[in-house]
Structure formats: C-alpha cells, structure tokens
C-alpha cells in the first residue's frame, strides 16, 4: 500500500520546499506521544536512508522509515484549515481511536 498526498497539500509542500531551497523530500513518521499512544511527525528530509520506503505522488517525494510505515500504510497527507489555524493532516486508515486532544492515536 502506498502513501499519498492531496493536491492542496502537495501545493503547500512544494512552496515550503522551494522556500527552504534544499532537501530531497518530506519525511513522515510516528512517535510515541500524547495521551493515546502515537503521534505524527512531519519534517523536511535531506537524506534518504537505505531501508526507507519512498513514495512519489503529485511531484512530492514522501519518505517513511520501515518502522513508521506499518503505522502509516495507506495514509493520505492532507492540508486543511480550522478557524485561524492551517496545517497538515494525516488521513490514516489504520487509526482506531484518537485521544481527546487529537494529538495522538491508536492502531
């Protein structure tokens, strides 16, 4: 299963990458955090490691470590606006529960 990105998210990633001037793509991952177990990480990547899983979608290179991949399989990276805030969202089909604060999730 691959990892994908929506049109609008790709547009934002592209402009961020252009502004930054360097980097090979975007690294997505999970880490243990929050009150319900796992949280998402999203950062610029300057390097692809040997065992990384790499996906190309809408011109964006998405990089995921094998350990994070099992939690992110089939995820779509989206961009949204909520009130005054805007930012990226993970549409992750593996998620069973989310915690109240929305910061962490369970598979």
């Amino acid at each position, binding site marked *: 299963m691959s990892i994908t990105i929506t049109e609008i998210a790709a547009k934002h*990633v592209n402009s*961020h990458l252009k502004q*930054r001037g*360097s980097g090979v793509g*975007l690294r997505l991952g999970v*880490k*243990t955090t929050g009150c319900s177990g796992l949280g*998402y*990480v*999203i*950062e*610029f990547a*300057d390097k692809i490691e040997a*065992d990384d899983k790499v996906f190309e979608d809408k011109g964006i290179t998405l990089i995921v*470590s*094998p*350990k994070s*991949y*099992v*939690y992110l399989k089939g995820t779509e990276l989206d961009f*949204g*606006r*909520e009130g005054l*805030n*805007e*930012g*990226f*969202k*993970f549409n992750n089909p593996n998620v*069973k529960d*989310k915690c109240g*604060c*929305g*910061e962490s999730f369970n*598979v």
Partner: protein
Amino acid sequence: MSLLKINDPLEESKHLKRFVVGIDFGTTNSIICMHNDGKFTQFRDNGSEIIPSTVHFLSNGDVSIGLDEMNSGEKYSISSIKRFIGLDEAQSKELANKYDHTISKKDNMTSFNVFETNHSVVDISSYLLKHLKTVAEKEEGEKIFGAVITVPAYFNDSQRQAIKNAALLSEINVLRLINEPTAAAIAYGLESDSQGKYVVYDFGGGTFDVSVLSLEKGIFKVLSTDGDTMLGGDDIDFAIEKWIKDSYQNITLNSLSEFKNVAKKIKESFYDDTDVVDYDFSGTKITLSKEKFHQIISDIIQRTVTIVRTALKESQIRTDEIKSILLVGGSTRIKYIKTLLSENFNCPILDDIDPDKVVAQGAAIQAEILSGNSKEDILLLDVLPLSLGIETMGNLSEKIIPRNTSIPIKSKKTFTTFKDGQTKLLIHIVQGERELVSDCKSLGQIILDNIPPMVAGMPRIEVEFQIDADGMLSVTATEINSNTKATIDIKPSYGLSETEITKMISDANSFAEKDMLIRRNSESRVEANRVIYALSQALENDGSELLNDDEINIVNDELMKLKNLIETAESEKIEAQIKQLEKNTEFYVERRMNKSIQSLIRGKDVDEVL
C-alpha cells in the same frame, strides 16, 4: 485532529548549537576557550589569550582584572587566589603573610580586607570568572550557555564546591568540573584509545603537579596525584637571575623586575635546542651555554622527576606501563625537561599542543560534548545507542528515553497499578527497539515496595530515567501520594558491542510489522483483562445490591464471552467484544454512578453540594 506544521531538522540543529566554553582557571593565568567545528578559539583580553588571574581593587571601589594597565590611583592587587581555596585558617594566614595580605573570616570563609570591604575567596574567584565570561561573550556576541571548568586533580569536594559557588556568583552554568590532567588527556584525544596509563606532567609558573591517569572504557580515573605548590617556572627564572648576579657582578640594573625579565628571556631562548645564548645587556654581553643552563636548572628538574617517581609508586604503576607523558604548563617548553623525562621514563612525550592552552582546550572539547553540539563519533558517551524503557503489562516495552537522545538527559513517565490494593510494583528496565520485552535486553529490575493499598489505577508511580554524561543510568521509581521511592544504578552500554547494537536496530526495522501486530494483540488482551477485573470487582461489591438476577446474568454472560476470547481470538474480535460489553452493561455503570453520587450528597445541604 490537530493540524501539523513541517519541522525542519536543519533549523533544529542550528537552534540547538549552544555557546559553551572550557575555562582553565589557573593559579597564575586563566584561559577561556571554545571548540566549534573542530577549531579552537581562545578569547582575548587586551589582545592576549592568556589572562592573568589577578584582581586589582581600586580605591574608588572599582575592580579590574588581568593585565595591570591602570597605573593611576591607589590600587590593591590580589593574585594566585586559587592557592587560598580550601585552606584552613592557619594555612591561609601563613600564605597571606607571604603575599602581604590582611585576611579575616567572612561567612566562615577566608576573606581579604581591601579598602575596608571584605571579599571572600569565593567572591574574588567569581570576579575572575565573571571577567572571563564577559571577555568571551563580548567577542562571540552571544551569552554563554554553560562552561566546563577545570580544577586540580587533588581538589577535594569542598574545594570543588567553592569553584562551583564562584561560578554561580558569576552566573556561569557549570556543565561539569573536570580534573586538569583529564582535560589535557581529552585535548590529546586519548579517550579514543581503549585503555592505558598516562602521566600528566604539569609544570606551570608557580606550581608543579603530576597526575597518574588510568583510562578504562573511555573514562579517565585519577590514580594518584603529587606535586609541589611552591615549585614552578619562576624558580627557574630565580636560578638564572642568581647566576647572572654571581657571574656578572659589575652589572647594575635599575630595578629588580629588569633582572627578572632578562632571566626569563634567557630561559625562553632555551625552549629549542640552542647551544649558546648571547644576551646584550646595556653594553655587557651575557653568554650562557646549554651545558651551563642545564647545570643551573638541573636541581629543579631533578626534583620534579623525583615527584613523578613518588606518584608512580603511590599508584603502583611500573615505569614500563606508562603509555605516554603529557606535558602541560608553559615551563615544559624547555627542551631539557623533555630530554630528562624520556631518559628517565623511556616512553613517548606528548608535546604537540601548546602546553599553556592544552587544559583549556580539553575543557572546551568536553563542554562541546556535554552540550550535545558535537555530532562526532563519540557515540557511546555522546548519545544513547539504544532506547531505554520499562516492561509494562502484556510483556510490552514502554520506551522512556528513545535512542539517539544526547546525554546527559532526564526523562520520566507516570505509571499505575493494575490490581486493587496492589502494594508492590516490579520495574523491569530494558534496552532495545523491539516492542516485546523478550526481544529487548534486560538491564535490571527494582521493586517498588510499600505502595499504599488503593484501587487499581489510583496510585501514581513516576519512573524517572536519568543518564549522566558518562552513560551511567539511574532509575528512580516514586509513588507520588506516599513518596515511596526505589532506585537502581546501571551502566547501559555494558556488554553490547557496536555490531550487536547495529543488529538490534536493524531487527527493529525488519520485524516492525510483526511487532506492531504483537503490540496490538497484547494491548487488547491487557485491556480485556482490565475490564474483566474491574467488572468482577464491581459485581462482588454491589452486584447483588444494584442488580436483579436477570441483570446479573446479562453481565456475567458478557464477561464469559470476553473471557473465552482472550486466549485465542484476534485482537479485532477482543476489541469488538469489549465495546459490546461496555454497551450492554452501561445500565450497571449508570446505577453505580448514581449510587456513589447519592452517598456523596446524602445528608448534606443543597448549598454544600452545589
């Protein structure tokens, strides 16, 4: 779902780079140094990297440090303050008399009476440190985040505390105090060897110190120290001075200090292997041959060699065990010292690094490592090679500190009990990336005893992991309500080689999928067990009171269904059954809730409850 921003690891690392320095707080001179991107910067005061450890008090209350540039006005100078640190009253008096200082006691510390104000030894040390700090901050244009300060190896705890207090007063965050000889060894990069014994020969302006170091697993231990606090390069100057006076009696100099300067210049000429030094002094030619020079200073150098032998004897080290001798202190530039040392001890002499700066540079390297700025391959000392965590219900490993975290670090998580009235908790400390405890390496365990009996989930047990800069892990478990504690100290990198570590990490990646399934399976079973336990306890307590027989049957029925699934079923089925059970026993939960609310408000005024 919260909205996320993209992190930039580059920005983070830039941000994390902190301005840290090493400080060689010397008896005669001090140096403040930074190590960054493999380069050293010694910060200059009045153009000099070597800053005299002298404090000048002016009659108007001002204090100036270092080079004595102001000649106007009345002035009182204190030098060699480091000699006073940690001396008792009688010793201080004796030393103060020698320097012509008036001293008394202030806050139980030796203090100097200067223009009717008392300044303690710690105060004066803090003026010096503060000055060094200002010099560095001015040049770098940034506040110092922290410093490693060097102290003589023979300093005891109270002397070390005095230096820490002085640093505190000068608003310097002390990352660590390290021994001067250890700093020198770090500057020479000796810690990358696996082991060995070294002699650090520190011959400064006014003091001579020798330390025997033993390196084991990248950590230096001081085996023995010896020295002479009244023997230094100055004594060599005196000897030369005396020789000039004896041999050239017709020379008259304007001042004593002029003699001293000439002697010093002649000494410096013998830093390399010069045969003869000619010095033209206001018409009189002074000629000193190498042989004669050696003869003049031979007594002094022989004394230092004897002290080295004593130190070796004390640490029970044979001469042939010494891997090398490190030279520290300006006086060691004299070629003759190197010759005599290699003749006597027959081992390599390390002298490539400027002996005046070597201690400060070692401290600067250590500061860089401790602050986490350095990304170099000091893997085991610098970052955690594998995650550390504890075992939780269901044979799962809960990570407390993730791998690659730079140390020192402190991190804690809160846990709780699983059974009602549980009074003990076994904390099993594990190392590794895998989800299951059986796939990780066990490091040790502690039992937290005397937890006050409470309902499951009520006690708050804080487990704190603390790793110091040497990689030593100490785990403390505390039950918050009762403040019951248990502690264990562990050396985490023990017994794991580089290859084992690499294998453990790659296993974690290749077994990621399997591990996730196992974690999920285990988590759902733990949850099911918890639900069964809680419900059974409730039934026992008030089941017959709140429920009729039919209702009890419903609850028991749901319980049985879940119990049957636990052993064999997939986690999805267990989770589904938990959901169903929760739905079908909702009425019972509601009644329990009502009952406890009733019991809370019974017999109370409306006002009290609201």
